[in-house]
Structure formats: structure tokens, C-alpha cells
């Protein structure tokens, strides 16, 4: 009888121990916080990149009046010197700067006649702020920072969102005849270079209204 009771007691203890160690209770808030901590936050990464990398790098942008002649005379040298891209392929990105006069204001962009470059015009996008130009042009983002494909896609989208919020409102005040200086990112195809349709995604702009 005593042995039987002892046997059942051992079994009961084993079952309780097993059950106790099989089930864990955690607060839902803690689980959510843990999951959020492990999830890549593209918006936060983009804001940090904007403040700590892109903005300080603006002074290193290549001047349009230096880049265009270089692309004309020795495109390979120009791409090697000033272009960047996160991946491989023909699409490369440049961080450019320049100044000129607003020649046209359209629904999707403004056209700038570049100072000191007869006939050279650059479009600055005001509607289609998409793609990787602003993310990749500085070459300061490391692809190994990202483990998931969508993470670096989302970073581009978030940087573009910052541009829409911070830069476009300034640009949309531009009028024909205004003086403008800008820093922006452009995409060029190194195999099939087309310098007649350069469109920059604006990163910083300064507009001086025309004196009337």
C-alpha cells in the first residue's frame, strides 16, 4: 500500500514538474516589446542616416559643372570617382550640387538653367520622389547592415518620405526666374549614358526669390 502511494506520489510530482516547465506565461506587452526590438525599424534608420550621414556628406557632393564635362570626356573615370550603388549592375548614383535660375515650373518637376554652363539644364523632381538615389548616392550605407531584402527597400522609401516632408515644401515655392542652389541625388546608367535628361531627387535646396 505504502509503496503504491509512494509510486503515485513520484508520478504526480513528475507530471507537475513537467507541466510547470512546459508552460510559460509572459506579459503581452513584454512579448510585443521584444518583437518590436527585434524588428528592423526603417523609419528610425532613415532618420538617423539623414541626420548623421547624408546631411554631413552634402559638402562632398560633386559640382555639376565638374561632373558633366567629366562624364563627357571620360565616363569611366567619372563613374569610378563619384558614383555609388548598394548593389551591382549598371545603375549608379551621384550626389551632385549646383546653382542656377529656375527656367520652368511644371507639375512634376522644376527645370534649372545651370549657372556658368550655357544650355545645360537639370530637372529637380517635385512629384516622383521614388527609388534609391538618395539612399545610395553617398556610398555611406553598408549592405551588410541589412539581413532582409525588404529592409533596405524600406530605407529608400523612408528617406524619400523625409524628402517629401522637409524639402518639397521649399521647392514648391519656386517661381520662374528665382535663383536656386541645390544638392541632390541622380541615377545614371553607366552602359547607356543619357546626359540630356538628368533628373535630381532634391536633398537640400536654397531659393532666392527673383527681385522684381
Amino acid at each position, binding site marked *: 500500500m505504502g509503496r503504491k502511494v509512494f509510486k503515485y506520489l513520484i508520478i504526480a510530482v513528475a507530471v507537475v514538474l513537467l507541466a510547470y516547465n512546459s508552460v510559460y506565461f509572459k506579459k503581452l506587452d513584454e512579448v510585443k516589446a521584444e518583437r518590436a526590438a527585434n524588428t528592423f525599424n526603417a523609419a528610425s534608420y532613415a532618420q538617423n542616416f539623414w541626420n548623421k550621414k547624408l546631411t554631413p556628406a552634402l559638402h562632398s557632393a560633386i559640382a555639376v559643372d565638374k561632373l558633366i564635362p567629366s562624364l563627357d570626356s571620360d565616363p569611366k573615370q567619372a563613374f569610378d570617382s563619384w558614383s555609388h550603388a*548598394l548593389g*551591382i549592375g549598371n545603375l549608379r548614383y551621384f550626389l551632385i550640387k549646383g546653382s542656377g535660375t529656375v527656367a520652368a515650373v511644371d507639375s512634376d518637376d522644376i527645370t534649372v538653367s545651370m549657372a556658368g554652363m550655357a544650355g545645360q539644364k537639370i530637372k529637380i523632381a517635385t512629384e*516622383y520622389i*521614388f*527609388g534609391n538615389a538618395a539612399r545610395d548616392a553617398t556610398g555611406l550605407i553598408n549592405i551588410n547592415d541589412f539581413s532582409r531584402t525588404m529592409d533596405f*527597400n524600406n530605407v529608400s522609401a523612408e528617406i524619400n518620405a523625409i524628402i517629401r516632408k522637409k524639402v518639397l515644401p521649399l521647392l514648391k515655392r519656386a517661381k520662374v526666374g528665382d535663383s536656386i542652389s541645390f544638392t541632390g541625388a541622380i541615377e545614371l546608367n553607366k552602359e*547607356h549614358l543619357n546626359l540630356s535628361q538628368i533628373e535630381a531627387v532634391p536633398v537640400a535646396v536654397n531659393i532666392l526669390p527673383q527681385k522684381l
Partner: protein
Amino acid sequence: MKYLSTIKQYILYVLVLALVFGSCKAGNGRGTHKKVAVIVSTLNNPWFVVLAQTAAAQARALGYDTKIFDSQNNTAVEADNFENAISAGYNAILFNPTDADGSVSNVLEAKAAGIPVFCMDREVNSVDAATSQILSDNYSGCVAIGKYFVEKLHKHGKYAELLGLVGDNNTWNRSKGFHSVVDFFPGLTMVAQQSADFDRNKAMEVMESILQAHPDIDAVFCGNDAMASGAYQALVAAGKANDVKVFGFDGAQDVIESIQNKKIVATGMQFPKVMAKTAANYAGEYFKGKRDFPKKMPVAVELVTQENVSDYTGYGKKD
């Protein structure tokens, strides 16, 4: 006599040792001469044939023995291919997976055997299984298509979307890239979004049914070129080929010709040869001791339109 017997014994030892070391070398292939396996999802699609053959050719050009294994779009066949490649002593695997989730265990098996795996074009859903994954930048390619789509439709109209295989990451990366642009424009309304499994015939059937429900659509965005061709066929049959703009993705030869003939509006050009060569080169670098490969390496996708199609040929640029 005793002297002869000792010599025989020595010869026997030497032969046994030669046999043991010789078989080890042949068996595990870890000798100086390297072997590279190319395991591809299917050889029933010319795009993947180009991918596999280019990878094998590049590996051969680097001095390695190569063999192509066809997984026939079947994860079980793929698992057999991995087992065969591992037991046959291949030193690296250039891999085009059949399934982002289902293929992870195969890659992990190779990793456990000390064999690096370099994914080409399609990814596996694991951060650390493959040594590196060389993938088309589907999302960014479709951002470019999305922008061109909005421009061509002048920001207004109704459209349909044909998705690829719903279990394939490429399907969603393309769709998300496209919508990351198009959804910014409230004048554009998506009236139908259906999967046609990347298949031309299925796309034709799906497009026929979409046209019955929505005869007034202005455009269709297709997640690959096979579906774009199928959708275009359905539009021709319905007498709407001139009214509905078709956009594809891949850069297949027949769609490049359709763009030249102004039947299809645009596609995204992927570069299977670039991906395949990069994967083979990475394997070569691995053999030489390199270990710090990027986990994901995007390969740029280029927008091909009726304006720039003369620069391109199927699966790449004109030389």
C-alpha cells in the same frame, strides 16, 4: 624467402594506403581540384536555362568541374539533388531555389556538410543559411516600372495586376515595389489583382475573366513577362490590344520583341548572366579563403521601354 615476404608486406601496405587516400580524395572532392554543383529550380523555362548554363560555364572557366542538377520545380527533387551533390563531394553549390521556405533545409544540410551555397535570383527565407544570395533588385525594378506606369497613364485610370506564385518572395517584392509608387496617385484604381502563377496560359485565362468583369481597364501590370504575353494574347482576342497598356517584368526575348513592335509598353530587364557569373566568382573567392560575403547582393533591374528598347536584347544588353 623471408626477405621477399617482407617486401610483399610493404607493397601491400603502400597499396592499401594509396587506396585509402585515393578514395578519400575522389569521395569528398576536397582535394585541389574543386567541383561546383549548379542546382536550378527548373530547366523547363528558358530564363532558368540561361541562368544555369551561364553559372556552369563561368565555374568551368574558373577551372572547376561542374554539373547542372534540375529540380523540376519540386522541393523533393531538389532535396535529392542536394544529397547527391553532397555525397558526390561537390565543394560549392550555385543554387536557384524552388521555394523560399521549403529550400532552407536543403541549404542548411549543405552548410552542415561544410559546403557553401550561393543563391541566384531567388532567395531562401533564412538570414544565415546561404553564404550569399545574389538577387535581382525586384522591388527597385518595379519602382521604376511603377513610375513609368503612372506617367503613361497620366495619373488616372483603372488597372489590373497579375501576380506570380503567391509563395514566391519575388512575387511580393515586385508587387510592393510597383504599389510603393502607384498607390501614391489616387486617380489610379486597381480593379482586380489575381495570381496567374507566372504562367502564360493561366495569365490568358485570368485576363479573359478580368476583362469580362472590367471591360474598361486602361492597363495591366504583370509580375513577369510570360504573364504579360498571356495577358496581351487575351487582349488581342477581346479586340482591346490597342486600348489596354501591358507592362511586364523579366526581359524575356519575346517581350523585348513585343516592345519593339509596340505591343507591350515596358518591362524590367533582369540580368541572369550577371547573377550567375557573380555566384560562380563568389565560389571561386570562397575557395581562395574569402568569407565575408554580403548576405544579400542586389543586382540592378533596368527599365526597358519603347524609347530605349534598341539598347537591349533578351536577358540583357546588346554587346
